[in-house]
């Protein structure tokens, strides 16, 4: 092979990419991640544009304009008489437009997902970092408490906590957040332990770097991947658990348009008004599916071992 041919070959190599660009490219090549991103993108759009796309107010009863509770869905293009007002998903028990409630519900569910997981990650990072750094009895104490939290099935623990704090969306968020803390605490603790003994970290400590600096510059970047993956999957769990709490009446309170609550309020009407279960049920399942798919895709895309 001549020298010229060699140069030509090396020119054909793709340009080197950064870690982030690499991960992003991997992510977009991953089928489930793309589907998940698509679903979540749609959901965000619906949540942001809710006041624009919702045909009615989500908490306003239409009784005063002649609406009847439990009116079946009426879609004009599908053959519903033009003389009747159009309600794609029918009316609920208080004669409120169901589709508007489902649309506004996207806001609440996304809010629930991000706040609970944000809360759990912040506390999990603090507990995990303190436990990993200090070792000894502090480590033992913190991690045993985490073990006890993990010993309860998450929904059961959340129910117990809400029973103490009293029903309501905010208390439900706190309860679900608490049940998720151990997951993140474990991730950060193991990352701290593996990083703190590395030579360059010891050197940095010898130079007088504060634990906080080491945490933010060395430990967190190391545990970012598992935190992102767990966080995404954690949002799916949080949305599910919050909906379950609302379903049994411990979460969102009326007249909030929360999917779990809407299903719970309509559960005895399943045989007469199934659309009141169907629409919020599909919305809820799609949201959870979106976060699950994205979480799975992220795990595959961010794992350098799977890089081919």
């Amino acid at each position: 092979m001549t020298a010229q041919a060699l140069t030509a070959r090396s020119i054909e190599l793709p340009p080197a990419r950064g870690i982030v660009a690499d991960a992003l490219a991997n992510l977009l090549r991953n089928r489930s991640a793309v589907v998940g991103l698509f679903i979540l993108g749609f959901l965000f759009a619906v949540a942001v544009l809710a006041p624009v796309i919702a045909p009615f107010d989500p908490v306003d009863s239409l009784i005063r304009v002649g609406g009847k509770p439990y009116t079946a869905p009426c879609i004009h293009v599908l053959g519903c008489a033009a003389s009747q007002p159009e309600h794609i998903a029918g009316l609920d028990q208080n004669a409120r437009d169901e589709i508007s409630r489902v649309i506004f519900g996207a806001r609440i569910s996304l809010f629930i997902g991000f706040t609970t997981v944000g809360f759990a990650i912040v506390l999990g990072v603090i507990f995990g970092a303190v436990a990993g750094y200090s070792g000894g009895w502090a480590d033992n104490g913190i991690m045993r408490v985490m073990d006890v939290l993990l010993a309860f099935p998450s929904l059961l623990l959340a129910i117990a906590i809400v029973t103490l704090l009293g029903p309501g969306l905010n208390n439900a968020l706190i309860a679900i957040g608490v049940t998720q803390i151990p997951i993140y605490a474990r991730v950060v603790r193991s990352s701290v332990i593996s990083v703190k003994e590395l030579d360059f970290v010891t050197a940095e400590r010898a130079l007088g770097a504060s634990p906080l600096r080491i945490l933010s510059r060395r430990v967190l970047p190391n545990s970012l991947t598992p935190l992102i993956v767990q966080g995404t999957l954690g949002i799916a769990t949080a949305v599910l658990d919050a909906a379950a709490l609302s379903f049994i009446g411990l979460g969102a309170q009326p007249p909030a348009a929360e999917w779990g609550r809407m299903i719970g309020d309509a559960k005895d009407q399943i045989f007469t008004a199934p659309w009141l279960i169907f629409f919020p049920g599909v919305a809820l399942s799609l949201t959870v599916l979106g976060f699950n798919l994205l979480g799975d895709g992220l795990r595959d895309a961010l794992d350098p071992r799977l890089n081919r």
Partner: protein
Amino acid sequence: MIGFIVRRFLLAVPVLLGIVFVTFAIGRLLPGNPCEAALGEHANANVCAAFNQRHGLDKPIPVQFLTYFGEIIRGDLGSSLRFGRPVTDLMVERLPVTVELALYALVFATVVGIFLGLISALRHNTGIDVGTMLIANLGVSIPVFVLGLTFAWIFAIGLKGTPLALPPSGRLSSGLNVISLAQAWHLESLQGPPRVLIDFVSNMYTFNGLLRLDGRIFFDALRHMILPAVALGTIPMAIIARITRSSLLDVLGLDYTRTARAKGLGERLVVFRHAMRNAMLPLVTVIGLQVGGLLSGAILTETIFNLTGVGRTFFVAITSRDYTVVQAFTLVIAVGYVLINLLVDVSYGFLDPRVRVSS
């Protein structure tokens, strides 16, 4: 091996103590105070002083904790404020329903989950694989209560009048009555733990029908179990399918599997005798972890399908602020969950000799 089991058990003790402490705290941190919670509007300073003295609530907290602990050890979980009966009685009456439901859900989840995971791994990257994983992904994402209500609607309304119609609520068709095992076997004079055990089994209607060889009761009870068990078992089923697939794929790519194939073993022998054995390990852990989900999922499933089990009782207790029941059931479910995972850990030692040696 015995040393391994003892060590695992000792590791679980602090967690069990922690659980007892948490449930104790639930009882003491109630909104208002236990007296107001128990007596409601009848509570006043005098009545409450007597109430606190009777229940030892005027003593220091550590003493109260020890008293509570002692009561639990003796099997006394207090009395339900709403039903006015000992919680243990409620437990013997209603836990069997939940155990029966969870058992069928777990059987469904394991059998269907392993089957789906298996064909998905063996037909890797084909249409079958994509289809099965789609089912698995949907399965983890549909909430129990949405699935349960949808099933109730499809099988009780949509398929009404067809042979596929299934009852959406209750445990037996009206007109059918269950005879308790103690009565059938003339053991009504029996007392103590054996009687509790017989009553427990007797309250699981499918087992009751089976043991008394009463086909009508057995099949009717089983028909009533199908919808709730499938609804409850779907999330674990999907998780088990995914784990089976990924761990089987891992093992099928290993050298020893290639060796097995190279020496001419049939595909069936390679998969079931060689690959499945190692792929089973993570599976056992995952199946054990699902039990917690089944127990809390039972709260929702039993509410939807009108089954008077622990889950439904828990739900009623929450809504009627029956704190002793909430406290006791939380304790029993969490302890059961820990013990089952302990069992899983120990079985791991049996299945994988490396675990025994390294710990």
